[in-house]
């Protein structure tokens, strides 16, 4: 682990993501899925299912979980862990301030 600087990137207003939906943030390294749950919580996960690479941002969001659109593996949005499989998808720091979403690019865009 090497130190990365925190760099909060403004990704736009929370309302740009539908409730129980997701949008992506495209970075040079990877695509990140930013989820908005029914209760307005925001989570950021790598937009790539560890099973066969399904785009998690397209899955059905239920509670703090998402079901991969390709073969229905279900992931916990907070931890990135799969519920029934031994697999995990990377999560990234996000925060909401004054109704806008900030993603920590220091982490998101580094190794």
């Amino acid at each position, binding site marked *: 682990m090497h130190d990365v600087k925190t760099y909060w990137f403004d990704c736009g207003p929370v309302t740009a993501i539908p409730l129980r939906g997701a949008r992506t943030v495209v970075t040079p390294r990877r695509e990140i899925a930013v989820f908005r749950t029914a209760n*307005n919580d925001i989570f950021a996960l790598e937009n790539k299912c560890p099973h066969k690479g399904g785009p998690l941002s397209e899955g059905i969001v239920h509670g*703090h979980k998402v079901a991969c659109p390709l073969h229905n593996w279900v992931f916990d949005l907070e931890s990135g862990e799969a519920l029934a499989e031994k697999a995990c998808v990377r999560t990234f720091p996000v925060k909401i301030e004054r109704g806008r*979403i900030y993603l920590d690019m220091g982490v998101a865009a580094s190794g």
Partner: protein
Amino acid sequence: MGQVDQTSVPTKIVVIGNGMAAGRAMEELFAKQRPPLQVTVFGAEPRVNYNRIMLSPVLSGEKTFEQIIIHDEAWYAKHCVRLRSGQPIVAIDRKAKTVVTSGGDQVPYDKLVIATGSQPFVIPVPGANLEGVVTFRDLDDVEKMHAAAATGGNAVVIGGGLLGLEAAAGLALKGMKVSVVHLMPTLMERQLDPSAGYLLEKAISERGIDVYTKANTEAILGSDRVTGVKLKDGAILPADLVVMAVGIRPNFGLGKAAGLDCNRGIVVDDWLRTSDPDIFALGECVEHRGQCYGLVAPLYEMAKVLASELAGEKPSGFVPAVTSAKLKVTGIDLFSAGDFSDDDENNEIVLRDPARGIYKRVVIHDNKIIGAVLYGDTEDGGWYFDLLKKGEDVGAIRDTLIFGQAYQGGSPLDPTAAVAALPDDAEICGCNGVSKGSIVAAITSGGLATLEDLRAKTKASASCGQCTGKVELLLAATLGESYESSGRKPMCKCTDLTHEEVRRLIKTKPLKSQPAVMQELGWKTSGGCPSCQPALNYYLLCDWPLEYKDDYQARFINERVHANIQKDGTFSVVPRMWGGVTSAAELRAIADVVDQFKIPMVKVTGGQRIDLLGVKKQDLPAVWAQLIANGLMSGFAYGKSLRTIKTCVGSEFCRFGTQDSTGLGIKLEKLMCGAWTPAKLKLAVSGCPRNCAESTVKDIGVICVDSGYDLHIAGAAGLHVKATDLLGHVDSEEEALEYIAAVAQKYREEANYLDRLYKWVEKTGLEHVRRAIMEDHDNRKALYERFLLSQRVARKDPWAERVAGRDLHEFMPLAVISRIAAE
């Protein structure tokens, strides 16, 4: 008041704002031993300190202003506080250490306390400053509302949160006709989950208040006085009074102008000190560790810390607190606390009593309560909140936790034993008033051994079905080993009801929204799961085509973006080709799109159309736009919906053809396109029994014969292969269209979600379908009419809607970052 050092000069404390936080801080301070102080309080409001929270009962007339005063004149006199009410402070001079009043007085301080509270947020729509538009924050606002209510008329409250609903209920009690306009799908969404929000909406509506959810205000109408409110969807609500209750903003302008560190509020540390060591701030105007507050409990904690600090003690500092909320509308009991956003069925315990309108949900993490939502019965709110705040381990009482504090102490029973232990007169079925005793009697002396028989004879669980689980447990407990469970398959883990039961109840109750279904049918989870959400969405859409609004987030990605997701995350696009017929112009348009968007594969499908594979998601709207411009539209190749209607050339060209099979196929497709069905629906029309269109392995197939049309149903050619059954014969094309649409409608209305048509026929019986379509002519006509009605809403091109701008968010990334900006 302890020993006071008479020799030292009293410290001059100036307090700006005479609200709830300031009032409590002074009370705490005067209760302490402390050095001599000289306190001056400036209040913008021309009155003494009162309990702002209780403005709601003052508005409704349940209390008078005198009853909500906290500190009367005598109190200020007793504590030698100089109260200067009606004198707002307009500036702070930190160098000179003075504050300036609106009258121009300069008043010196040694220590300054800012407690200016919040300002109601006014949404900047046209007309927001018209006469008759008010906010709900202080007594002046209440008096304005009372004046308006005196003449009756219409009131519109914008905002369906705590404040807005209290205003609405109060105005309704004062005799106004009230509407509430709320942006979100459910009321009080910050304090309640959708289930509790649904119950609340029901209770509010029962008071004669009209509730408009998902409603966005476009403008407030009127030339000098308000006359109405216009919503974004065009609706106009008449209004003589408009109350804006959409939120509050910390009131920190004074602090900011004085150069104090401010963010969302005046920034304070754990000891409520601002960036100036002689200036403190507390209440709603501050931001502490990134958080602002809007309820009094944490402000009272701040008041304790500040009083201790001002008294020269060394307090341990303010810690952010979990808050709980209650709505102060007489007759509506709700409570919420903590974090209840997680609706993972493993982490939540849900109890619903549809008959009594009760909903309770406790959210647990690592054996600790982290949140609770209670509706209808809030007696245990305090108990849960206490367990939550203390972080107590509830692992041992988890099974009985939801029944409340009174239930604790007994040893937990297994469910069968618990039912067996009930007294004979315990009511099992609330709808039909059937007691345990009469059910047991029906089993033992009546000889009934199945759920179905019990339902028929005793009516137990025959209405809402919510007690089905209990009735089954009673059967098991009474019959012991010999009971074979009915093998009913509940729809999913969220309910004991089967698909059939849920469908029936949606119609008979009637239930018109997902939260309504989940509450009234006693769902065991708070928000459903990926398997019941799409099913309920379909059932509601099918049964209430004009009233129910499609919930896209409950749909699988393909139906949300109207294309088929492929293994690499790209999409496939299939335009409709009516009856499998295309033209040079259409082919050219397709070819152009393929070139322009470098679509890697073009394939002819088994359903006689062309599939463009490997389209990038962000290209979809542009691809569609081009196709649409050339007269093509969505082929719904992705949906639980009508797919293709395969045809042969028929009498137009084929020497064996008996009827115009292509023409009929096109007409059918035009009639049925866009219809959502329980599972995909594929049709075919063949021009003669040689059956070139393979009609006999389709969901619905037509074989043309000299005398007319043979209608076949319930074929399959997928995982399962099955030839169709003959449904009957019709003579004319018009009849063929009507009969087929009627079959489709019956399937739409009766089948379980995801059951293909042959599965449904297998379960319900071919004879049942045949009689309903071929013999019961009124019934068939009614089915056909219902199909047409639902098509009025459904028959639109989803691609065109998206090209026109609908759901654009689906196709664009939220943000694209090319490289990290240099620092």
